């Protein structure tokens, strides 16, 4: 009990000291000074991707918070180097260095703001069931592996480079499949998602995206730790 009190006293003292020192700094450094931190530097990103990268409410811009760092870095360089097509992203990233993009990826990867509730479900139960089956089991007749085989049992991604699939708007998921189908989203070869997409029908894609977008992300969800489990097919963006 006594030690508890002591520790809380010292905590209060530390907080007070910190507050005092910030006050002092704020008072002596000219008002022109900016917080020199990465959050301030990348405020441009959160205009669309939401506070701390939690995604916006309009259901298109994806959440970037908490995604695996390697995945975010790959996407940043893919936009910059023309392997993913979204002109505004390319324009914004055009002249940023690899080192800076690493830092930006690390920052958003470390943010874990709460997830919003899933979007209201519009699909029929049959469509949702087809989606669930594809995600959990794949479709061996089409040589489509289960999503969970690569994206983690909890579908929250696998560090360092496989993204989570839940907590994303359905429109966003659909448009990524469209981009793989049309060849405008390209990852390092072998481009596993581009291959899988060619094996899926539009109905399959709609079913999977409907089911994924309807899932509630459990509290404290994180990408699974890096694993040595063999991927069902080779992916250039995931270092072996």
């Amino acid at each position, binding site marked *: 009990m006594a030690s508890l009190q002591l520790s809380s006293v010292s905590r209060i003292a530390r907080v007070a000291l910190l507050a005092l020192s910030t006050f002092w700094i704020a008072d002596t450094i000219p008002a022109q000074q900016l917080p020199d931190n990465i959050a301030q530097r990348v405020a441009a990103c959160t205009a669309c991707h939401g506070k701390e990268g939690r995604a916006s409410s309009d259901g298109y811009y994806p959440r970037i918070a908490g995604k695996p760092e390697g995945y975010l870095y790959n996407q940043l360089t893919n936009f910059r180097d023309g392997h993913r097509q979204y002109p505004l992203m390319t324009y914004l*990233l055009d002249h940023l260095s690899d080192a*800076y993009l690493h830092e930006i990826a690390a920052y958003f990867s470390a943010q874990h703001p709460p997830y919003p509730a899933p979007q209201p479900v519009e699909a029929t139960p049959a469509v949702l069931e087809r989606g669930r089956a594809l995600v959990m089991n794949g479709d061996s007749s089409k040589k489509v592996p289960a999503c969970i085989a690569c994206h983690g049992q909890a579908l929250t991604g696998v560090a360092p480079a496989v993204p989570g699939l839940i907590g994303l708007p359905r429109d966003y998921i659909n448009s990524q499949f469209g981009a793989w189908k049309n060849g405008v989203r390209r990852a390092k070869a072998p481009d596993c998602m581009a291959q899988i997409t060619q094996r899926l029908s539009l109905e399959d894609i709609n079913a999977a995206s409907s089911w994924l977008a309807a899932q509630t992300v459990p509290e404290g969800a994180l990408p699974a730790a890096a694993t040595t489990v063999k991927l069902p097919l080779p992916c250039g963006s995931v270092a072996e």
Partner: protein
Amino acid sequence: MTSIKRILLALLLLIIAVPAVIIGAEFIDHEDAESAAAAAPSSPATEQQIARGAYLARAGDCMACHTARGGQPYAGGRAIPTPFGTMYAPNITADKETGLGSWSANDFWRALHHGKSKDGSFLYPAFPYTNYTKITHEDSNALFAYMQTVTPVRQPSQEHALRFPYNNRILLAGWRALYFTPGAYRADSKQSVEWNRGAYLVQGLGHCSACHTTRNAFGATVAKSDLGGGLIPIMNWYAPSLTSDAEAGLGNWELQHITALLKTGVSPRSTVFGPMAEVVSRSLQHLDDNDIQAMAVYLKSLPQNDPPPALDTPQPDKATADRVMQAGAKIYEQHCAECHKAGGQGIAPAYPPMSGNRALTMGSAVNPIRMVLNGGFPPSTQGNPRPYGMPPFGQILNDQEVAAVVSYIRNSWDNRAGFVSPQEVNRYRSIPLD
């Protein structure tokens, strides 16, 4: 009757003869005396020469056009939109069949100095030989020596997609007769060595006038408005005048602010964006301090005598203007003031000042409109490796709101410039960003 016939015959001859003479003259050119005098180097390139060439390739920003996004260095393929159609920069790697591998140093010099290809055909002036003609023969040879060391990439150059009649290279004979004379940089003995070095870089390799000078209907930069500013066609960014205090004239800038802007992309006075961010990123940040200083000295010395540009859009009446200013003030307070401050002083160099920032108050409002719509990051440079960015607002503000806030910024604090209409904003929403 016979006299009419005679006149017609004479006219016909004139119609045939004049172009023939022009074309012939342009083909022959005056290249030979000069070329022969400074023959191609017979000894193999030295390491020093190659290193020098690599540096000069940076100064000339050759990569900007000759490398496609995500493509192999110098393998060409970048599309360059022009009012005459799309041009594709060719492969200039050392590949023998599809690049410059089979060229000689003299062929290279002829392209830079005379604007002609290896086979003697006229090059389109999207390749800025009107500037490169001022490059010395020694520098041309160094550049060539370096280009011959660039990893060969076998990739045939893409045909230009130009409209009739611009797709006929032979017509460039007429263009050249009007707008191009091969020439060398002539040092001004009344100026310092440093000034002359800066002038050589700005006028020649740097090809600053390619953007910062207005082009006429034939795509030629007009000499009398040299560096007087111009709207970059199709890309729709306005490259400000470097000779006007109302725009980007540098006469009253401190030298260290000019060098900071060129070398790092940011300065206490303003920040580079759009195509100039690319120039700093790919070219200027790699130049040594002496050359940057020389360019700054030269730019600062340019005569500052352009009249402020006239407004080309109708302006609102007093009541409407007041309403727009009120609406703009609200948007500014909500979205801009956190970084650029209520008093418009900004927090330089991260967030450039609004008050007194000439990038915002030029006759053409295209740049501030596009900054608000698309935001942007200055380039990562050695001096500013982790730039602060500006968010895009195009997705949350409608045309009317963007027009109001840009009008407000252009007419608050010390700024006085034309109001912007929602129609004008709308025009710039659909411009390709890449």
